[in-house]
Every structure is written in C-alpha cells, then in structure tokens.
C-alpha cells in the first residue's frame, strides 16, 4: 500500500519535471517550430505520467469509473497532441511565419518552391 503511494508520488514528480522542462523549452527555443517540439512532446509524457498517477490513486480509493475515465482522457491526449502540433506547424508554415535564422535547411520550401509566395 505505502509502496504504491510512493510510486504515485514519483510519477507525479516525473510528470511535473517534464512539464516544467516543456515550459522552459517554450520560453527558450527560438521559433514557433522549435517550440512545438517542447509543447507537444514533453507535455505528452509529463501529462501521461500525472494521469497514470491519478488513475492509480483512484484505483487505491476504489473508484473504478474514475479510473476508466482518467485512462480514457490519457488516451485522447496521446491521440490529439500530435495532430494538434502537426496542424499548428503546417498552419504556421503556410501563413509564412519565418523559420529561425539559424535554421540549416528547408527541403520543403526547396521542393514546393515559389508556390509559397
């Protein structure tokens, strides 16, 4: 029982760490495309860990409908986050939001070329 409580605490802590790293990344990275890396990936794992911890806590308390609901929300998060970040990246690109000047290569522009202007 108490080992489980400790495990839940560890899950929360790890989740918080990754979400914190995500915030730092969003603040520090230079352009929207790099920031999307932080906002999509780190928050996915961070929130998944917290959700796992919450589900275990609800399981300890015996509220099974809550467990199902929490895990379902976690699943939705896993499905929706990559789609959202893809949509944001694509929309930003077609709106002409510039890449950071340190960007090394843009093969997409090279291949679709003048169409973007």
């Amino acid at each position: 029982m108490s080992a489980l409580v400790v495990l839940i605490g560890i899950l929360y802590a790890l989740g918080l760490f990754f979400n914190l790293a995500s915030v730092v990344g969003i603040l520090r990275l230079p352009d929207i495309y790099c920031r999307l890396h932080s906002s999509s990936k780190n928050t996915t794992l961070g929130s998944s860990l917290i959700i796992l911890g919450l589900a275990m806590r609800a399981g300890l308390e015996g509220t099974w409908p809550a467990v199902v609901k929490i895990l379902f929300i976690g699943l939705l998060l896993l499905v929706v986050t990559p789609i959202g970040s893809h949509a944001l990246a694509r929309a930003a690109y077609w709106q002409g939001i510039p890449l950071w000047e340190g960007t090394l290569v843009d093969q997409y522009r090279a291949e679709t070329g003048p169409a973007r202007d």
Partner: protein
Amino acid sequence: MSGSLAEPGADDKAQARHISRGLPPTLVKSPLTCPLCGAAAPARGLRRRPGQPGSRVEWHIVYACPACGLIAAFAVERALEHPPGSLPGAAWTQELRLFQWTGQTARLPQERVARPKHFAAAVLISFLTWLILTSSLAPLDLLWGFAVSLVVARFSYRLSAFGLPGWMRDPRRWISFGRLVIEFNRQLIVQNISLSLRVLQPQMRIRPGIVAVPTRLRDDVGLTVLGGLMSLTPDTVTLEIDRARGVIYVHWIDVQTTSPEQARRLISADLEQQITAWLK
C-alpha cells in the same frame, strides 16, 4: 490529372468556347508559376472533368509547364475567385491536390465515399465516449448524449469512412500492434529525456531544419499513424504529409543529415517497419 480528363467531343468544344469567351483575358493569358521549377506555364485550354456533370468544378483550365512537364488543372470557378498568378499559400494547398507529376507513377489515392453505416459508426463512437466521460445512466443524460453524438457525427462521419481493416480481425496483428506500442513508448521516453536535457542546458545546442523523409507507406491509415507518431518521437515534428508520394516533411530540431535515405533510416525506419508489420 490530364490523363483522366475526357477528350472534348464536338458539343464539349462548343461549350468550352462559350466558357472561355466569358473568362477575363488576363486569366487565360497570364501564365502560372510552376511550383516545381519556377518556369512560366501557359494555359493550354479547357477540359471537362468527367463524372461531375453540372457541378461547379466540372470545367478546368489546364496549364502545362514547358520545362518540367508538370500539368495543373484549376477548376474554372476557383480560378475566377483566385487568379492563379496571385494564389496565396492556403489556396495553393487546395489546388495542389490536382497536380500530377508526369513521368512518375504516383497516383493520388481514391477518396472514399462516406455511407450511412459510417455515420452510424460515428454516432456509436461519440456516444460511447459520452458514456465513459459522464459515467452516468440517468435518462436525461443519455438523451443529451445521443443528441450531442448526432451533431458530432454529422460533422465528422466522413473521417470514419474506412472499413474495418483486416488487422482488426486477426489476433496476430494485435501482437504487431503491441510491438508498435512498446517501440513508441521507448522512443517517447528516450526523446523526452534528450529534449529536456537539451532545453535545460545553459548553452542550448540546436540545429533545426525541415527535412523530407521518404517512406514506403502509401495508404492513409499508415501515413496518418506514422505522421502522428513522428510528432512524438525522436526530435521531429510532422509538418506536411505528401500522400501521393509517401513523403513526410518534418521539422527536425537536430539535423544530422540532409540525405533523404539517411534521414529515413535515422528517423522513421523503425516505426515504419512496425507499422508495416501491423497493417500488412
């Protein structure tokens, strides 16, 4: 697209003349900038797209690039709204679906047609989601849930217009799916640690860039899954998916190579292999 456009018969020619007389001369005279090579592609004529009688997009202006052989067909109605010379990016992505790279065998996948059973499936999925999220069986809740499901399905049922694929009925495929999930989780964790360390370092070392990753997948489900997973795994966010050629353009935060084959090996080969095993 030109290959599937009907050769105009006598009636068609008369109708095409009638339509082209009604077009502003600038539209017919101003060439299109070829998106592949940048050359000026003049308008070649009007063609009727078969199978769409009376629809707003029945007639197309055909442009042909003299330098690279690209053929583009714009629906007349759309070309009137956005003269091809001045198309903004967003409109271009719409029209790019009509392009065909001549000399390549890549074909655009057939659009699937949504049927009533897909609508029913969408209602069912929405309703199950509602049941899980509310976890209530009160009659009023059920009634509301059903009403909401109908509305949601009305707007989303076209997305569920693919049949129950073979892999869902085959237990061995579920094992492949399990392997895919494990591989994905491994990559997600590795990726998260590396990204966290990257942004928490005092001196951030990033070498961002947009790279084309060729894949051997052509079907919608496979490309969607791979594109989605690539957003969450090693250092990449999916920017664009070219369905016809199976190329995924990714924003790579630490560009290690610009060679497509090498990029494929570094970024997507493992996941792609798992997805192929799962869907095959």
